């Protein structure tokens, strides 16, 4: 109940802000776009909670160049069609800075509009390399790329000197992207990829796949995708006495995998961004989240926080509210943020984004490997 009340309050706040926009010039609108409803709404919540916190804190500290930040929230349901409508609405509403979107398939068509309209966009969650590969000026992100995460996982596997590895993915943008990067790196490293194959996301029956994996006799199985499918694969593999080590990207590193896989989740390897909420310098921020009754440990909370902070600092650095100048300032500057030191390359990707290999346990905890 409390979340819906909160939503209502923010919605009212946002609409008052929009209505008042004509009169008060002393504010900067930040559009926040992500799924509030639909199957991935839980990830959208992380995004909104991080961005809201940053706006609140910056305003409490006196705003940006004396002006207040105002968050305007949009729901794109992670549907490419609605994302385009949302992007057009932002243009309408005079939003010049956007934090979003969440799903790569929404971010990509929306970013075409932002680029054309001169709106600065920072996505805190979309990891598809394609988004920043089109020579756009106004597109940034505060998260690593699939093509960065894959090699980290593959290099770890190579260091274990396996003979044969199977690489499975869920035939979706995120999963297949990482899985391809893993395969390529493994092959360069001289490891035999015995199987490279897709499954259908949303499927429940993986008995054939598990049988095939048993037959293939592999040392490791890498899975590119999300936790619902991997949880089932782990469980069905265990029932069929397949004892290979599985590995996955941050999309599987979620406590929900334990409720599905149970004991079978023990020993799963996961590459994750380092837990920002466990860093010492972020403890104050973590407490602020906990005071509000929100959980800062989700993968996109602090990246969204950082996105807002970068916009604010970019405006300060450029000394202007013009998005083009802010984009320039972001490219040139170095920023200290909760997710570490951020420096951008010419494409709008961070120069470095660290991933760490963790071992997952059946009680939902994780420990860094080596």
């Amino acid at each position: 109940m409390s979340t819906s009340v909160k939503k209502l309050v923010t919605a009212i706040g946002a609409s008052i802000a929009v209505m008042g926009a004509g009169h008060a010039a002393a504010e900067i609108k930040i559009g926040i776009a992500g799924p509030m409803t639909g199957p991935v709404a839980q990830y959208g919540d992380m995004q909104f909670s991080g961005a809201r916190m940053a706006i609140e804190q910056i305003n409490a500290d006196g705003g940006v160049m004396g002006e207040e930040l105002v968050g305007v929230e949009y729901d794109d349901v992670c549907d490419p069609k609605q994302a385009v409508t949302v992007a057009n609405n932002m243009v309408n509403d005079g939003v010049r800075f956007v934090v979003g979107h969440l799903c790569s398939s929404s971010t990509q068509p929306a970013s075409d509009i932002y680029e054309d309209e001169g709106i600065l966009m920072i996505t805190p969650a979309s990891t598809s390399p394609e988004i920043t590969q089109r020579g756009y000026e106004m597109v940034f992100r505060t998260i690593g790329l699939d093509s960065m995460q894959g090699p980290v996982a593959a290099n770890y596997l190579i260091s274990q000197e396996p003979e044969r590895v199977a690489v499975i993915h869920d035939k979706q943008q995120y999963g297949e992207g990482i899985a391809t990067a893993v395969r390529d790196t493994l092959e360069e490293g001289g490891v035999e990829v015995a199987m490279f194959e897709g499954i259908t996301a949303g499927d429940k029956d993986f008995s054939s796949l598990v049988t095939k994996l048993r037959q293939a006799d592999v040392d490791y199985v890498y899975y590119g995708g999300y936790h619902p499918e991997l949880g089932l694969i782990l469980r069905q593999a265990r029932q069929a006495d397949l004892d290979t080590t599985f590995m996955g990207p941050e999309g599987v590193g979620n406590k929900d995998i334990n409720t599905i896989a149970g004991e079978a989740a023990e020993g799963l390897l996961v590459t994750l961004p380092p837990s920002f909420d466990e860093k010492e310098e972020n403890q104050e921020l973590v407490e602020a989240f906990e005071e509000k009754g929100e959980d800062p440990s989700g993968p996109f909370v602090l990246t969204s926080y950082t996105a807002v902070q970068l916009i604010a600092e970019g405006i300060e650095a450029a000394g202007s509210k013009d998005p083009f100048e802010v984009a320039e300032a972001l490219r040139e500057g170095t920023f200290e943020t909760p997710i570490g030191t951020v420096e951008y390359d010419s494409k709008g990707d961070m120069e470095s984004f660290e991933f760490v290999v963790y071992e997952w346990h059946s009680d939902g905890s994780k420990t860094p490997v080596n």
Partner: protein
Amino acid sequence: MAAHNLKHALFCAIITLVISYPILGFNLESEGTSIILEGAGATTILGVLLAAVIVFLFQLFRDSVMGSLRQLPAINPLANRKPMEQSKRLRLESTLLTLMIIGALIWPFLASRGAVDLATLVLIYIMLALGLNVVVGLAGLLDLGYVAFYAVGAYTFALLSQYYGVSFWFALPIGALLAALFGLVLGFPVLRLRGDYLAIVTLGFGEIIRILLNNMTSLTGGPNGIGGIPDPTLFGMEFGRRVKEEGNTSFHETFGIAYSGEHKVIFLYLIALVLAVITAVAIRRLMRMPVGRAWEALREDEIAAKSLGLSRTAVKLSAFTIGAFFAGFAGTVFASKQGFISPESFVFLESAIILAIVVLGGMGSQMGVILAAIAVTILPELAREFSEYRMLIFGAAMVLMMVWRPQGLMPMRRIHIELKRQE
């Protein structure tokens, strides 16, 4: 009678409790790594009980409630009026249509950008629904995989532009023709199937196309989709801030006006409008041509139509192909509007929504289908505050509509000639 009513009402109330209490009253929550059961709040439980009581009372006094409802004067005062004279009605309808088109032409210059963009989407759905209307409404062939042809149109443009740099205007006819070709090739073997067998086969075909698009990563980009699809140009003038294609000029520079992103949105809207009007007019003409009559004849009575010398396969194939053609049209516009397409835009639910538009509008009726397309696309946007309940309401509305007004918003009126009575 009262005792029987009481028993029945009690039974219905109990059923209401049984189907709602376990699902609504207990929530499966994850606590750490295990699943636990939590009782729902008092409001939910009260709601469930209230629902049961309402069902009980309704069923108990069902006869008197329904009776008094029936005695109410007709809500729709037009329902019982005499049908208008044929010629008058036709004149009225064409004036109305002209006014609508003029309104649609002026409107984007006054409305906001987001609204125009949404209106473009509405027009795409209108094209799709008009096309499906030929297959389902006129020819009576149940097609559950219509979205496949939409996908063919969209992907044709995307692939042609990616590999050969083909522009929107060349891709538009190619996309539509290719979709029509797919319709022809699929239609040929399956059209001898009847009714529901046809439905499941077309559904399967739609899924096959989507999965193939998703799996042929090297050609279609698989789940990554295809991005960077160009916008339409106006005589070689581009609408972007910078000119992307060599040899083109930019719209705002040619006319010496300031750049505005609205130009592009409005231009796309106008293209969609023109294409939707073309679709509507073309289908309207076809309906009155022999082939259109043949569709309806076959729908009404297959055997009678055959005995009059109509070729069943040829007639069905023509409907299937023409329907697919317009889906290809719509697909090309969609790809251009989005600038990025991926297989997730072409799932079965999309087919179901287009079918729902056709049926809600009134099968065979063009005006009805246009109204329904507007309603189905815009209502969810307006109901954003209830966004969590959006799909729930959509599903319930589909059921209620079928129960209360199965003929659709504006049922098709048969064009008929009244013979003079002999005095």
